[in-house]
């Protein structure tokens, strides 16, 4: 446990907290936490949530008058899906009725049926990821293929569970692409070193990298995993954060079913989703789910057992999942407003993705791939030798040194690339694209000024 690191809330954030407590204005761009930066939750969702939290309000005439009728109807319906109401433990996988809603959503999204019995709701996607890794990792010989750069939940969890992380590098120059040959080599390397390679993780859209995988890419990944008998873990939490049209989101499940044949029957796939991201951004409610495809019934039984030790996922998270997968329909009272709110947020995210990318690309020595999806900018920074030296003297990795200096000078809190893993000899930082539109230009301005000064200082 001592060796585990989780940089998203690591040194930079802690320093930012210190400065904030000392009275400095800090802009936290270290974490994908939209509502903390002013993003509004969806009205319909919160109306239903409030009514479900306090069902006696449904008897109150003033509330009935104030709330849209579909929110009221949905709240009543929601309560029937949660026996005992939101104060009662539910099925350890989450309410069966809501899991059916998820299955229906998946069917609609992918065009293939989904089995509600094989869906587990959890307090966010992170506990679901951990549950799977916990089942997979027996000892240090068990290796999990993880993309580099990666979201450090994976590295931290693998470390905690006593397993091994087997990296496969995404190629920055070609839009953070992955190469099946690289994967194959890594597997061979792992096996030659006595490892049992258990699973392959991929994050689509990518975090921190923001790339969206093509259909072909997914097909290659799936066929590779099937060939090598790896469990495929598809982190798809950013599936509705797509900021371009060339690479729309395609789920691993859909590609698997399209492939058909023995691969579709045998490839063990676990897909993760969450309410924390997208345009609903309900991080604080803690809700997510995983869909298990072709997982052995005995393993599902074990996972159920582990889930049962924590009784059940929190009910408000479940409510929010239901609202995410089963939205107002055309003709419903709230439909138009709901669509408008979502569209406004998405359009704003697209604009901000461009603003951040362009802003970084204007900086000396900095290149930044476009944020095709997810919520982050992950620019590569190239620092002068004097800066590298200063960092060494300070006892910090060079990107951490840069990020700390950025924080002190501008109040902007980012996460150094070393927190995510990166190609040796490269430096990066991750920032979110979430600062509100009315302040994002200021963020870029401050960043630009700092960078110019920093480069001049260490020239």
């Amino acid at each position, binding site marked *: 446990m001592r060796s585990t690191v989780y940089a998203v809330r690591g040194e930079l954030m802690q320093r930012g907290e210190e400065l904030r407590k000392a009275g400095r204005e800090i802009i936290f761009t270290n974490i994908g936490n939209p509502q903390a930066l002013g993003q509004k939750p969806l009205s319909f969702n919160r109306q239903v949530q409030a009514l479900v939290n306090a069902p006696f309000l449904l008897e109150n005439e*003033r509330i009935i008058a104030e709330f849209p009728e579909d929110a009221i109807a949905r709240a009543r319906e929601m309560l029937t899906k949660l026996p005992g109401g939101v104060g*009662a433990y539910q099925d350890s996988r989450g309410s069966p009725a809501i899991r059916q809603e998820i299955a229906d959503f998946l069917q609609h999204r992918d065009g293939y049926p989904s089995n509600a019995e094989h869906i587990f709701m959890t307090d966010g996607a992170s506990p679901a990821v951990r549950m799977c890794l916990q089942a997979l990792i027996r000892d240090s010989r068990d290796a999990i293929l993880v993309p580099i750069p990666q979201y450090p939940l994976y590295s931290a969890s693998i470390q905690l569970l006593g397993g091994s992380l087997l990296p496969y590098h995404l190629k920055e120059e070609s839009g953070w692409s992955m190469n099946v040959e690289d994967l194959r080599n890594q597997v061979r390397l792992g096996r030659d070193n006595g490892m049992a390679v258990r699973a392959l993780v991929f994050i689509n859209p990518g975090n921190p990298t923001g790339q969206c995988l093509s259909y072909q890419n997914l097909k290659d990944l799936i066929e590779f995993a099937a060939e090598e008998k790896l469990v495929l873990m598809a982190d798809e939490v950013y599936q509705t954060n797509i900021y371009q049209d060339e690479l729309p989101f395609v789920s691993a499940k859909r590609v698997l079913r399209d492939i058909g044949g023995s691969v579709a029957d045998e490839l063990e796939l676990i897909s993760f989703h969450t309410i924390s991201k997208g345009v609903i951004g309900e991080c*604080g409610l803690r809700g997510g789910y995983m869909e298990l495809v072709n997982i052995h019934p005995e393993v599902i039984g074990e996972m159920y*057992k582990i889930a049962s030790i924590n*009784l059940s996922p929190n009910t*408000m998270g479940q409510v929010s999942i239901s609202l995410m997968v089963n939205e107002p329909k055309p003709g419903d009272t709230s439909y138009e407003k709901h669509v408008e709110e979502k569209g406004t947020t998405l359009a704003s995210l697209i604009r901000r993705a461009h603003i951040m990318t362009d802003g970084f690309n204007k900086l000396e020595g900095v290149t930044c791939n476009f944020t095709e999806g997810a919520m982050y900018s992950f620019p590569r920074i190239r620092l002068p030798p004097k800066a590298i030296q200063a960092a060494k003297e300070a006892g910090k990795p060079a990107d951490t040194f840069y990020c700390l200096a950025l924080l002190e000078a501008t109040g902007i809190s980012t996460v150094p690339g070393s927190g995510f893993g990166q190609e040796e000899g490269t430096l990066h930082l991750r920032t979110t694209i979430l600062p509100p539109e009315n302040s994002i230009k200021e963020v870029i301005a401050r960043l630009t000024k700092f960078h110019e000064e920093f480069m001049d200082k260490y020239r």
Partner: protein
Amino acid sequence: MTVSTDEALAKSDAFPLSEKNISAQVRAAQYAVRGEIVIRAGELEEELKKGKKLPYGDSILYCNIGNPQQLGQVPITFFRQVLALCDYPEMMANPHADKIFPKDVLKRAKEYLAAIPGGTGAYTSSQGAPICREHVAAGITHRDHGIKSDPGNIFMSDGASQSVHTILRMLLRGTQDAVLTPIPQYPLYSAALALYNGTLLPYYLDEQNQWALRLDECKSQVDKARSEGQNVRALIVINPGNPTGSVLSEENQKEIVKFCVRESLVLLADEVYQDNIYIAGKTFHSFKRVAVELGKEAEQLVLVSMHSISKGFYGECGRRGGYMEIINLPADVKAQLIKLSSINLCSNVNGQICTAMMMNPPKEGEESYELFAKERQGLLDSLKRRAKLLVTALNKLEGVTCNEAEGALYAMPQLKLPAGAAKAAEESGKPVDFFYCKALLESTGIVTVPGSGFKQAENTYHFRTTILPPEDQIEEVTERLSKFHAEFMKKYSNSS
């Protein structure tokens, strides 16, 4: 849940992930509260839904789990009002808001929203939103007669279970690390010890003496373990007890604290039932207060106290909320704890706010106080009545003795079953209390948890039932149970 066997899947031998190659710790962990019997109950419930007629009626009676609101317990109005406003603050803009919500509700919701950036939809600091921790600390201070609690020592959680996982994960380095665990115990502990590869070091509670905690018993277990090369890391105490329902005396608690200091054990105090005490002459004393009042003798005590919104008179199980207060943890260890908490970002904010309100409820003089106090008292009185009713009924059964449910939400009767039952159980490959509980379920629809699920002294058999069936159903439960028990005893007394 029915785990259906897919023939095609079951045939293949070389699954990437299967029972053969799943983590051994996962395989070893067990949790009977939602185990086999409960799964069977789920199947029966499905059958009932499909219209099948069962001999005992049209409902399964879930007495296996402390899940009060599932059985009709009404939540505390103030809590739900504030939470609803936190989820949809726009209600406060309604010109009639003060006619829908009492003033103190509006004030409280505004207070939380002002202090929590992004309201219930944003990640908070990993330890929990400062205002929630402040409210918890204030509540602890009040509860502990003014002994100050530091919000910096509070870690909010998605329920006490999560805190248990976190602490045990931190304490256990390998199988040589052992934790003193009460027998019988709430099986979260045995499950977590299995998951994190630690060793469960049992100390047997004394059933003959109201499930008393015997320190001489603890000491001999510690000495034995150490002589075998084990590091004994901590002592788990559940007070009020689960499944036993016993409440410790202050004297006993003082001795426990001193014992932990002497033996260098972390004291893990599971105090989630602190608001569930039913008998005169017994009161909740927090281990924190006991330790502080001991003064110098207990200065070195490392204490982790856990509480939850799931029990008490608020019963907000589904919401998942709670906290742990950590006393005397070295700063570097605390930093590790914060790091560990950060990987899951934070606990759910609705749960954090509810926990804050649990520890900082309406005060006398405030608008909502009267209703709050009425709801609280009504529930506690009802739980007290039901505890007595159930234990009395259980003690009437042949061969059954049941200690009083002094606190918590359960009764844990001991069964002395005829030899014929033991034989039949053996033939079925199950412990005899499991056999009994299964038969109870099939005959009456009542779902309980066999004592073996909690561990028990050798050659004793128990089952645990909650005291939660609604008052108008409790008589039905005891009637069905009595009838079944009489038939069961008759059946297996006659068989050889």
